[in-house]
């Protein structure tokens, strides 16, 4: 039973990592840039929710605030692309990497100025209570995280398979030149990808905020999520999610069964092992197949 308990809390954490990793991969595939501010997007998404929902800020109904927060983050992602990132179009990769790292700092400090540096809690209806089933205690929040991640994954899958914009995003990421030839407005599509990545990060942020306390350094789990994306095979959406789950699950098990401190280390040990033995990531075959 202890095994199940660890597995479920690990999966719930892993879902959050996976969603952030998904954002990394979305942007990487579409624009060949790595957005190192993805974790901070997640943190910002969570704080936007705090601002909308918590009583001493706006105090809006949680379910009303969710679409609003997603919209705000989506718009922010799109605006960032068309204002800042597009001006670096055609520049060196390093320039974009540095820019996104700087962007992370800016987001962190601005959030700190607005919301303060103390940890706070998102008033989330998901954060209440536990469910007991089959001798395992599952917090509602963990359950919600897993369910929402599954739903979001299915929705994204459908989006990429069925919609015109989704298809255009795939096309632009697979062969940018040919996408231009087809009359796809590639830059606009890339803006949409940034918006989508920010929305996914916002979902991750809401889930993260529902699971526990929140402060402006929450974005640093983006580093773990980055490791997850690499483990899964950078460039593969299912791989990113799987990588997130693996990292999420490995942590509680390593903390439980290995000496103290190894829990934090385990994901990175795995990262190094994967880079040495399977440099393209665990799910590289998946990558050559779909999405």
């Amino acid at each position: 039973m202890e095994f199940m308990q660890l597995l479920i809390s690990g999966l719930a954490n892993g879902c959050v990592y996976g969603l952030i990793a998904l954002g990394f991969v979305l942007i990487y595939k579409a624009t060949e840039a790595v957005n190192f501010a993805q974790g901070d997007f997640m943190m910002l998404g969570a704080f936007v929710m705090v601002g909308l929902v918590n009583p001493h800020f706006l105090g809006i109904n949680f379910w009303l605030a969710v679409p609003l927060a997603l919209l705000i983050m989506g718009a922010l992602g799109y605006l960032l692309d068309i204002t800042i990132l597009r001006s670096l179009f055609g520049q060196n990769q390093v320039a974009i990497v540095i820019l996104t790292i700087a962007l992370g700092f800016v987001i962190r400090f601005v959030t700190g100025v607005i919301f303060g540096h103390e940890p706070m809690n998102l008033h989330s209806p998901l954060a209440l209570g536990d469910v007991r089933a089959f001798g395992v205690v599952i917090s509602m929040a963990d359950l919600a995280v897993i369910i929402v991640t599954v739903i979001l994954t299915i929705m994204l899958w459908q989006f990429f398979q069925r919609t015109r914009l989704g298809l255009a995003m795939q096309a632009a990421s697979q062969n940018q030149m040919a996408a231009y030839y087809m009359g796809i407005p590639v830059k606009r599509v890339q803006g949409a990808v940034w918006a989508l990545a920010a929305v996914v990060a916002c979902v991750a942020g809401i889930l993260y905020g529902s699971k526990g306390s929140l402060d402006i350094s929450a974005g640093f789990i983006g580093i773990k999520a980055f490791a997850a994306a690499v483990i899964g095979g950078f460039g593969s959406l299912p791989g990113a999610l799987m990588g997130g789950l693996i990292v999420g699950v490995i942590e509680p098990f390593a903390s439980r069964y290995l000496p103290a401190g190894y829990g934090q280390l385990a994901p990175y040990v795995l990262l190094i092992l994967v880079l040495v033995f399977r440099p393209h990531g665990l799910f590289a075959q998946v990558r050559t197949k779909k999405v």
Partner: protein
Amino acid sequence: MSALLEVRNLETYYGPIVAIRGVSLDVHQGQVVTVLGANGAGKTTLLKTISGIMDPEKGRIVFDGEEIQGREPHQIVRRGIVQVPEGREVFPLLTVDENLSLGAYTKSNRAEIARARDLVFEYFPILKERRQQEAGTLSGGQQQMLAIGRGLMLKPRIMLLDEPSLGLSPILTQEIFAILKRLNKDEGVTMLVVEQNAAVALDLADQGYVMELGRIVMSDTAERLAASEDIQRFYLGHANEGARGERRWKKRKTWR
């Protein structure tokens, strides 16, 4: 009658390097026009400039009476100008069907798209067989067919084909060009074909231009070009030996 596509004194640069220096040409409705030339002559740059991938420094491109130079590629595609790029450039991880759908990206009329798809399958039955297959797993010839089919999905008013024979066996090249000929004759598709393979291109085309180092050096009907000595010698490789069996590298082209 004014031409469907008029290019006038076009100049395009790659940074500081001039790739085409003052090219002018006409393509009339229903015609096949070919531009011949060796590697680096500027043929691809010419097509890229027409389809808006590159912006010209000088000159005009007039399509159906409207100046279109320097516009965004998607605005140009919306006008019915589609480029079938060099080296196929299919979307490798998408299926044949999805690739074709993307060809009609700027279209929204479902019935029209379905008709275009039927037409593509009529001309390229192999694509229908493979419609669920990922494009990256097709053979080179099939990918070329897909690239042309994807272009047809737009119901283009003019199709710009960049070296459709590239990397194909002679038999496949013949096959592809035979299909292009049928598309022109039966469907009335106007084409601007850039080629190194002068024999097949001149056989297909009504009108031809020869490009060298970014300039048009010859233009005539395809028939007369095919018969001209320069083309015979330098592009068709017929060693039309003179009385003393002079070597071809001693011979100068008439335009030099």
